[in-house]
């Protein structure tokens, strides 16, 4: 049996070919598989990490970027704890589509979802979107921002670990008072805060 204190769902979205699958593979398997081909529907990976001595299970949903899979991928937004919106820093159109993606997120995801903007492929030297442009966009839309390279393993670990830490923080701060009030008396000692079964409804 796998034991973990927290379970978080992380969903990656963004145009086709920006490197969502590569980011996930790099993080979960330490690989950079070239010539992957487009993802079909949704892919699903699990990695358990340790944050402040606690086991955190990350359920990572890697969605297809292509339009025709939209009705599949959209159905995963709602239960996501974190949404990673990825674009390719060497491809302007993938950046131009970000507002459309945000609209989708607005429509389908929970309003409290943690949102992260990621500019991928910083190993490439044909950059089209300067870092500060991505930063500005993220700041304007209240998102975290990070530039990564799945190929060189730059910032990939950091990206997911940051998410795990933030979500854990969130879960703890939101959950504690709630449990305190609902079981105000004697039982409060026995109700554990983040046991695996209740994480789904934390956020």
């Amino acid at each position, binding site marked *: 049996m796998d034991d973990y204190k927290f379970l978080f*769902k992380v969903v990656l979205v963004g145009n086709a070919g920006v490197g969502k699958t590569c980011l996930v593979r790099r993080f979960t398997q330490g690989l950079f598989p070239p010539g992957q*081909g487009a993802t*079909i*529907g*949704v*892919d*699903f990976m*699990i990695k358990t990490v340790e944050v402040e001595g606690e086991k955190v299970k990350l*359920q990572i949903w890697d969605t297809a970027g292509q339009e*025709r*899979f*939209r*009705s*599949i991928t959209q*159905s*995963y937004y*709602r*239960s996501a704890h974190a949404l990673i919106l990825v674009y390719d820093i060497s491809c302007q159109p993938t950046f131009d589509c970000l507002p459309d993606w945000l609209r989708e997120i607005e*429509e389908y995801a929970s309003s409290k979802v943690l949102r992260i903007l990621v500019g991928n492929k910083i190993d490439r030297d044909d950059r089209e979107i300067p870092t500060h442009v991505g930063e500005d966009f993220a700041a304007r839309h209240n998102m975290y921002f990070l530039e990564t390279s799945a190929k060189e393993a730059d910032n990939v670990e950091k990206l997911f670990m940051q998410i795990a830490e933030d979500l854990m923080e969130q879960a703890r701060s939101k959950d504690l008072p709630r449990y305190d009030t609902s079981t105000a008396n*004697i039982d409060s000692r026995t109700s554990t805060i983040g046991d695996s079964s*209740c994480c*789904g*409804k934390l956020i």
Partner: protein
Amino acid sequence: MEEKEMSKFVTQQAYIDGKIRALSKMIPQLKIIHKDAESLVTTINHISESSEKISGKIRELDTAREKVEECQKRVSDLIDLELCSQGVQKAIYDEDYEQGAALVHRFLSIDQSVVKQTASDFEKVAGVLKSVRTLQDAASQLREIVKHKFGDAVKTQDLHSIERFFKIFPLIGMHEEGITDFCQYLCTKLEDAAQKNLQTALNTPAGDKRYPVIYADTLTLLYEGVARMVNVHQPLIETYYGPGKLIAAVNILQKECDNQTRRIMSEFCKTRNINKKMTQINEISRMSSSSSFSKLEKIDPKDLDVLIGEMTLMHSKIELYIKFVKSKITTDLDVGISDLDERSKNIDKLEQLIKNSQVSQSKHELLGYYLRMEQYYMEESITKAVNLDTAEQGQHTSSMVDDTFFIIRKCIRRSISSGSLDGICAIINNACRVLESDFCNILRSKLKQGYPSGYLDLTQAYNVLQSSIQQGRLQPGDTEVARTAFVVALNNADSCTYYVDALCDRVMLEIEQAMPTMKENDRGKLESCLSGLSSVTATLKDVIEYGLQQLRASAIKPRVHPWIDSFMSINHEMTEDELSAYDAGETFVQTLIMNLESLLAPFKEVLTPSNYDSLVGVVTNEVITRFEKIVFKTTFNRLGGLVLDKEVRSLAGYLTTSTSWSLRDKFARLTQIATVLNLEKVSEISDYWGDHDGALMWRLTPSELRNVMALRIDFKIEDIRRLKL
């Protein structure tokens, strides 16, 4: 001493002499042995030399024999060459192409470089070169003829000749052309049949029984056609072209299959108005999410029912076809290609072939349409079910619960029949969203209306009566209607929790039956989505809790408080006489229990057992907290404490038996307070407090305990203060 030694030597002399004599006799013999040994060495040397010579000869002989054999083969090749070249022309002339091809095949199997070398080695055999040239000419001639003849045969639909030349191709080294030409021929047949089938489909009258699924039928015919072709021709290809060649054949057939799939899909979209429906659905959902404009013409979900069914059928047919192709080719590759690298390369090719095919594209498109429509169907049908909600008298729940779960189950089942795991997961996710937000919100908003307490002031009551009389009928009051609505909503939420659990279990079972060979990763996906669905119960429990709090605020609190508060009007500093008078009359707790009974009884009828239990829990909490507060506002003497202790016990007894779960724990504090107030003297507390066997598990803090003790007018404050707790 010396003499002794000397005499010893003298006595040994005779013995030593004897020995010397014997040795000198042996010398000539040793000389002979030495000579013999030398001659032995030379002999051995000789033997080894000659044996080496012999083995060398044998080696030479071996090479010689190999050369002879090679020579023989060359000679036989040359003879065959000669024969072939003589026969081939005749065969071609006689149109005996099998014979000709067999001869060319023999020629091709001869190592041509060696033949040429042989020819140059023996200039005299100039005929060899000639033969080679003849055969080469014949081969190319034959190739052209066969290709041409095959083309003619295709044109004239001469099945016999088609098969005949199909078998000849590989003999004259035209494997690729053979497969290509033959499969292209098969493609034309495929096209003809598909066109005919599509035409029949288009001509099917709307009243026909198959009309609603005519496109699924047409796709089925197409894929069955391709599958039949593969099944029929695979043995031929394997026999004449060798195993491992099926992928090349299917690669060509797939192109036509793609074309036909595209045609059918486009006719399907046209006839069934897919694009219009999709736009309409998208617009409706955009409207309803942004505002309450319902001017838009809505599609009746019922009208989509049949179409959705057809789409899942189409999708499952495509899925089935892809599975067929995959397994056929994989088996052929496993048999035909032993090199693992080569095989995995071919398997990659197969994956690409399928991934890039129109069939896959169509499958994804279809799934996209299906999911969007199914989602709409689910949402709209549930809205309908909610709007048409009726509560039968005597039923705990109303029709919308059964209806909603019927719809969800139907949608999930339909997704299972599509054969797409991603589709199933998406529908489960959607169902989860509809239940958790839309459905729970409806329940919540019904509970938000609250439970009318029934305390009408006079004017209100008068107005209700008047309006009822004016309408000519005396209806059950509005209050009654509102109460029923509230209770039903609360029960609905409760029964939904059971429905959700049952749904999850059954869905998992059904999927396992439908997809027995699920991959580990797919299973993980599915389980995650299902766990999302089952967590809807948590939201439902929140809704129930919300309802109970509503009930508490309007129906319980305002009534329970005055009942408890009447405790204060009773003097708890009693004399013996007062106590017996009190016991003889109607005591506080008797009245309270009677009142609680009258409060709870009507609910017992109308609430689900689990909701009723929760209600009793809420009532109990309310009674206990209020009671505790009131106790602190009262003063007691010994007898008053005795009365309280008795009353708390019978109250706890009553409420505990009212539910199926134990509430005794909730009473712990109150019971302990009563125990303290019932003490004979202050010091008696040590029987209960401390670190010994008789001690209680205290729910009161030491300071609380002191405060309770202070309520006893006969306990001295100093005694209490002096207690060591």
